[in-house]
């Protein structure tokens, strides 16, 4: 499932230094996906962000972090959303293949297949898939990458709404732009492009001015996650055949030995016909 060339697939370049915290993306996402409003209280989470976390009703969210720069209070932001991994963990663990990395870039979810086991939620290194906890027969919810818009030739709703920070286009171009920006303004950016290698590469890449972990970015492995389980799963046929085969061989040998012994005893019985053998 990996080894597909993702460089021409669409990706988001999100430059957090250009984000103004207007949350236009948050609103646009709700509108396009017709998500219900959440009843929240301000300051119910860590800082200024609202709602306190992504949820079945909120596919993307701007996280706020306040810090001090030259004696002034400043804000830094982080747009949380699905990373649309090149080799998605969610797709690899789903028993019914409800997630699919589309050739256009977005990782989409097929609700009609999902059995609701929530393995995708355990597997996603970024904690993206959310569950409809309020329902009797819940499904999973997550950012669709606006696959419907992208296939219709539009840009994702959040990227369209964003006045400053989001660029959308082929992944290799996005990485090039990101690298140019970092090279041009080494004082402004942390020298790292988050998402270039994280989890084997993602279709959402970030630039920031503050260390990534301080903004709430997760520190994840650089290997594609499906490799971790595949390195065990690929032994499945071999394990099945080894155990089955060796136990068959073992029992065949043992049973044959028994049978030979019985036959020998029978033969002895014929020789000494006096009494019946009862073992």
């Amino acid at each position, binding site marked *: 499932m990996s080894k597909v060339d993702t460089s021409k697939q669409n990706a988001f370049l999100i430059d957090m230094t250009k984000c103004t915290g207007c949350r236009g993306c948050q609103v646009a996402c709700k509108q396009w996906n017709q998500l219900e409003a959440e009843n929240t209280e301000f300051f119910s989470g860590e800082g200024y962000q609202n709602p306190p976390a992504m949820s079945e009703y909120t596919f993307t969210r701007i996280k706020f972090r306040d810090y001090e720069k030259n004696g002034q209070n400043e804000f830094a932001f982080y747009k949380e959303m699905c990373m649309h991994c090149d080799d998605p963990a969610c797709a690899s*663990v789903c028993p019914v293949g409800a997630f699919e990395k589309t050739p256009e870039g977005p990782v989409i979810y097929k609700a009609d297949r999902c059995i609701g*086991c929530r393995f995708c939620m355990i*597997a996603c290194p970024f904690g993206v898939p959310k569950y409809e906890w309020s329902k009797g027969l*819940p499904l999973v919810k997550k950012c669709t990458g606006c696959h419907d818009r992208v296939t219709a030739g539009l840009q994702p709703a959040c990227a369209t709404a964003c006045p400053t920070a989001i660029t959308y286009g082929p992944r290799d171009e996005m990485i090039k732009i990101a690298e140019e920006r970092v090279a041009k303004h080494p004082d402004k950016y942390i020298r790292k492009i988050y998402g270039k290698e994280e989890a084997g590469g993602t279709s959402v890449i970030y630039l920031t001015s503050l260390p990534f972990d301080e903004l709430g970015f997760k520190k994840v492995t650089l290997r594609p996650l499906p490799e971790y389980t595949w390195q065990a*799963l690929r032994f499945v046929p071999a394990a099945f055949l080894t155990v089955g085969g060796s*136990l068959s061989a073992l029992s065949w040998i043992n049973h044959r030995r028994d049978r030979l012994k019985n036959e020998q005893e029978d033969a002895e019985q014929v020789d000494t016909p006096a009494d019946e053998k009862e073992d």
Partner: protein
Amino acid sequence: MTAVRAVAKEIKGYHAFVKFMIFLVVLAAVASLARFVFGLGATTNMDDTYPWGLWISFDVVTAVPLAAGAFTLGAIVHCFNIKKLEPLVRPAIVTGFLGYSLVCVGLVLDLGQPHKGWHVLRYWNLHSPMFEVAMCVMAYTTVLFLEFLSPVAEKFGWHIPLRILRWLEMPLVILAAAISTLHQSSLGTFFLIAVDKLHSLWYNPLLPLLFWVSAICCGMCIIIVEATACHKWMGQPNEGVLLRTLAKILPYTLGFYIFLRVYTLMALSEGPFFDVPVFTLLFFLELGIGFILPFLMFTSNSVRNDDRRRVIAALLVIFGLVLNRFNVSMFGMMDPNHMYYPSIIESLVTIGIIAGHILFFVLIAKYFPIFEHHPETVDYTIPDSFHKIDDGKPKQEKEQKEVLPEGSAASELS
């Protein structure tokens, strides 16, 4: 009506303990109804941080190795040819069958879309450990059901099915061991994807192998506990001699497990091990009390020969296994600032599932000949067209056929 009355009368005659179990099962049924009416969010303490709770940790990840007795013993008796342990096989199969059926029940309750559960058969995803476990559990429950049919066929005197089952026995035993190997280990593969989530005391690439070996150890210990309990509370003969043989195998498997566990920790896991005091405690409880201590106990002859101490050692292994599965699937992934603990409904359902297991075992033992199985005296070979084994005693065979329908099998003959 008369049938209902007969059932009611029958139930009235049960022991108070059995009635209490029935009560717990009914309670669990009501609780699971609540889960469907009010939704998972309202009835459980699971949330987006803890998408898997008690139901996955116990009803699936722990219950499956607890039901490992059937395949372990089947392989020991039929493949390694330690025939004298045969009398233990049937109760083990009944336990296994019940265990797996209840795993299915637990899984269905936990699924968000249980009505779509069959989709696993339609959309295959070979990269998913969950797909594998689901397929194996289905296949293995079927195998166990076929194996479990033997006492049922005996009870009702169905001779032809009995012969077919008897003839299928070996293939089924081997199939059971192979399928079990796959899903016992794949349960470990589940957590390989939780790379940066599971604490390094438990995360390592050999998790599947560790899960498999510990399941085998646990399977044998469950049999020891079960046989001892049946002797004590259900008036079955003391199988101490047989359990002693089983206990002789245990030091090897336990020793191998401990070696593997320490090796993976030292050589394959990375990174801070003892940074969280609670995890350190859990780890030492699990490995020390749950595996090393019983290992030392089983190496001693006096423990193996003593009914009481033997069962204590076996219980310790079971404790170790349960703790290990919880550590891997729940505790080891917990965030101290936001803890998960099961809700009342979740607990009631799990308690009901355990009670259901005990209840059905007692009932099956009451109505079906699961303890009186002595194959040396019963011949189910398909007549004549195959290898002739039983030329010498045709009369005896006829006698048995007449005895069979009464449900007492051939116990008196042995």
